[in-house]
């Protein structure tokens, strides 16, 4: 196969189906809503030539972005997405670290099986894993039956359709993303370093704090980004487990598009979400690069 065909085919595919759609989103976010279908103005008219092009650019404006700042629904949704993503990333770290630690310190012959058990849920449908919690968390669900049976609570707790349920859902579905990089970092660690620390008078706890945690730092950072980045734009979890007052930007975008049919505002929401995500994505890439350089 000629070299240029090999390059051109995937390149053209990505240009047409990845880059071009973004330019369209950017363009529509600068357009006005119109009632005809498709519901936005102006349309780029190639027939009109250069004059049409000038007219087209003249009609673009930042009105939709101003609109996002005037209606407090949007900035509240961005802030609450960030807050939910930060809190649930932290919770996932708290749950995931001991599991990764236990795996890395288990007997050598057990590790492949444990690793497979962590990866297996990852191949199971995301939707089904979120759905599984609906039956557990509802008012007459299993968790409440269990708590009432034990006599811990007298009235069923309302968990489903609250932010608590969203936290549980994110921790549950993204847990493998947190465990795998931390496990990879801990497994490589030389355990004689811990013995050295203890010989030099460290307590077990301070040896863990001063040796193990810093050595698994790259794994922790990678895991946190792998949970945080997708959690911000999450749609399925807030719409199945969250309540009507759970504000997340992925859900707002979906409703703006499918219920309100306001394409320009939906596109503006998408552009702002992308701008918010660029910072953690760049930081994540830099961390990965540093980790690679430290190894190589």
């Amino acid at each position, binding site marked *: 196969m000629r070299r240029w065909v090999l390059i051109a085919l*995937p390149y053209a595919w990505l240009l047409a189906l990845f880059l071009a759609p973004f330019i369209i989103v950017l363009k529509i976010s600068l357009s006005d809503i119109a009632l005809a279908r498709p519901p936005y103005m102006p349309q780029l008219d190639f027939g009109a030539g250069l004059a049409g092009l000038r007219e087209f650019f003249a009609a673009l404006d930042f009105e939709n972005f101003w609109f996002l700042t005037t209606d407090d629904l949007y900035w509240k949704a961005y802030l609450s997405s960030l807050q939910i993503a930060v809190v649930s990333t932290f919770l996932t770290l708290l749950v995931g670290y001991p599991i990764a630690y236990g795996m890395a310190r288990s007997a050598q012959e057990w590790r492949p099986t444990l690793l497979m058990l962590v990866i297996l849920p990852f*191949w199971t449908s995301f939707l089904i894993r979120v759905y599984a919690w609906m039956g557990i968390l509802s008012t007459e669900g299993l968790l409440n039956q269990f708590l009432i049976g034990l006599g811990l609570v007298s009235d069923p707790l309302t968990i489903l359709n609250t932010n608590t349920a969203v936290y549980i859902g994110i921790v549950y579905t993204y847990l493998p993303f947190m465990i795998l990089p931390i496990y990879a970092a801990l497994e490589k660690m030389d355990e004689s370093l811990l013995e050295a620390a203890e010989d030099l008078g460290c307590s077990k706890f301070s040896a863990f704090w001063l040796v193990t945690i810093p050595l698994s730092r790259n794994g922790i950072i990678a895991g946190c980004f792998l949970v945080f980045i997708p959690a911000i734009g999450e749609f399925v979890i807030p719409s199945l487990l969250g309540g009507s007052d759970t504000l997340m930007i992925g859900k707002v975008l979906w409703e703006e598009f499918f219920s309100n049919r306001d394409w320009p505002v939906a596109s503006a929401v998408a552009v702002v979400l992308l701008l918010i995500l660029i910072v953690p994505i760049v930081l994540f890439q830099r961390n990965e690069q540093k980790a690679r350089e430290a190894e190589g």
Partner: protein
Amino acid sequence: MRRFSWFNATSLTLGFAFLYLPMVILVIYSFNASKLVTVWAGFSTRWYGELIRNEEFLDAAWVTLKVAFFSSTLATILGTMAAYVLVRAGRFSGRTLFSGMIYAPLVMPEVITGLSLLLLFIGIGLDRGVLTIVLAHTTFSMCYVSVVVSSRLTSFDRSLEEAALDLGCSPFDAFRLVTLPIIAPAVISGWLLAFTLSLDDLVIASFTTGPSATTLPIKIFSAVRLGVSPEINALSTIMIGIVTVGVITASLISKRAAVAQARDEQAAARTT
């Protein structure tokens, strides 16, 4: 010999209980006779029967499998090409943009990918249905394939390819006879990954589909929006079962392949 640690044993037990209990409960309750999903009323396979008789679910399952098959196959071809370009093609103009477009879809929120593809399809006047979902799924899963394949390509000995070229192979023959057999396991796992991603996807499919094509996740989502349903429990159990069997089989096969390879290498070492 390692000392037994209560802390590690507890954290592993609790951790895996947390990962697996919700799914175990789902499977158990799919055999519940009662329509009230939280009250146990005896063992029954009633919901599986209703599921099989439900034409809408069968249609959706068929559409989903078709989409997953075509998109994962296309994604594997394009993704392998892209990986080859990234690892072997050296410098060419626009390389930075190319690798950017390979990695960006991996971190892109699905709502944005879905929205932008829909706006493209409407912009060029393409009727939405199976074709548009296949195009959308191919685009994001080819990036996953190329990441999996390129990590295998970077780690293998390039001199094997050069030897084939020196012995008179055309570049395409060298790829077909030398490179492809070596990277085959990565290509197959890339295909499986693309297939599963396509089977699972709700958000991008919802944006890019039209009234003519409903996939299984879209059907499940609209059914469970209002609450738990016993038929969906049965459907979930079937899907969990298929995945479990698939993953365990794949890991056994790859374990056997690794053992066979180790044996071959030992044999080769003895003869030289």
